[in-house]
């Protein structure tokens, strides 16, 4: 179920975490579903087992999954606040925006770039607010 983007620069354990979060958000993974066992992920991706252990441990720390001794790692019955909050209205308006951008002739790459710039701008606005700088 996992795929890695080697060129993204995003640490591998975070890529794994994001993919589980996304699958839960989209309803592809539901409460009680088992995450792929360690050995399976290592064999499929040829990655360090410690990386998978770390990703699963962080997800457990967030409350998104639970580990059952000797059985594996499962999606938690109750998802933590923040994970499932992708309100339909937000998704719909984003979709409308993406359609508009595509209609204006922007490529998928350009659209992705715009979104990541917007995220960076928003993050630095927040930081400035925290530091008390206008």
């Amino acid at each position, binding site marked *: 179920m996992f795929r890695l983007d080697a060129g993204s620069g995003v*640490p591998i354990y975070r890529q794994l975490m994001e993919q589980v979060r996304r699958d839960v958000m989209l309803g592809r993974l539901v409460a009680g579903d088992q995450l792929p066992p360690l050995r399976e992920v*290592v064999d499929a991706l*040829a*990655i*360090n*087992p*410690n990386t998978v252990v770390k990703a699963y441990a962080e997800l457990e720390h967030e409350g998104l999954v639970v580990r059952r001794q000797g059985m594996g790692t499962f999606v938690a019955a109750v998802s933590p606040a923040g994970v499932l909050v992708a309100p339909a209205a937000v998704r719909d308006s984003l979709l409308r925006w993406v359609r508009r951008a595509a209609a204006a002739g922007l490529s998928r790459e350009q659209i992705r770039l715009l979104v990541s710039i917007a995220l960076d701008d928003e993050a630095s606005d927040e930081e400035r607010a925290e*530091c008390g700088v206008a």
Partner: protein
Amino acid sequence: MTAALALRGLGHQYRGGGWALHDCNVEVPTGRVVALVGPNGAGKTTLLNIAAGLLRPTTGAVQVTGERPDRQLARIGYVAQDAPLWPRLRVAEVLELGRCMNPGFDAQLAQARVRALEIPTRARINALSGGQRAQVALTLVLAKRPQLLLLDEPLANLDPLARREFLTSMFATCAEDGVAVLFSSHVIAELERICDYLVVLLAGHVQVAGDIDDIRASHQVVTGPLDWPQHTQGVNLVSASSTAGRTVALVRPEPGQRFGPGLEESEPTFDELALGYLSGPQAPATQVSA
């Protein structure tokens, strides 16, 4: 907890008087997969030879699970560069030799591994592919059930499929036993998926050593006008490069340090960290502890 491998003030002097390694301090916890990175001639192989108990350091101390390596030979598995094996022996004979020469050799594990990899045991070593030969060498050391695995450029001559097979089978065995692996390479690109601990060696000095995520968290890539590092006070500069009128620098900020307006800060990628330390000035070594 005893470190799988500890180097303290370690130095090694050539007969001619030059230093292959100088004042190296590294502590590798058990169960970690360590990338030992450095250009050719940086001292990687010397360091591995010392960790394997084949060379005595000139100064300082080396310990494998708390003891001198030459007293721990049964717990150390070392595959030297190009996986040297007697070319005229058959696979079965190599494994038998391993059994005779190593107390505690797990012959069953060795047989099972070779069978699972579909390597013909009647074949002579020189008739095997590079990937198969590397796998036989790995089988030989894994069957020792080591606590510390030392691999010198193990992937150097393997095609992509053989690399993948080598890695997955190494991971499978190591994860079960909590073996620490020291993995030397000068190919940065593939190391992020293999390793969780980084040691950068440059001209015999350890430039940085620590958990990769800890190192990442304690560094930043700062981009700004050409001369920003010169005009900013108190920058712990690891390396800097300039293109198209901008200077991109890898820095190790003090806790809470910010670099002011006009400069963009971002988290370094693994490649930026490794390359930054490989190309950087000879900064004092950084041991990043968790």
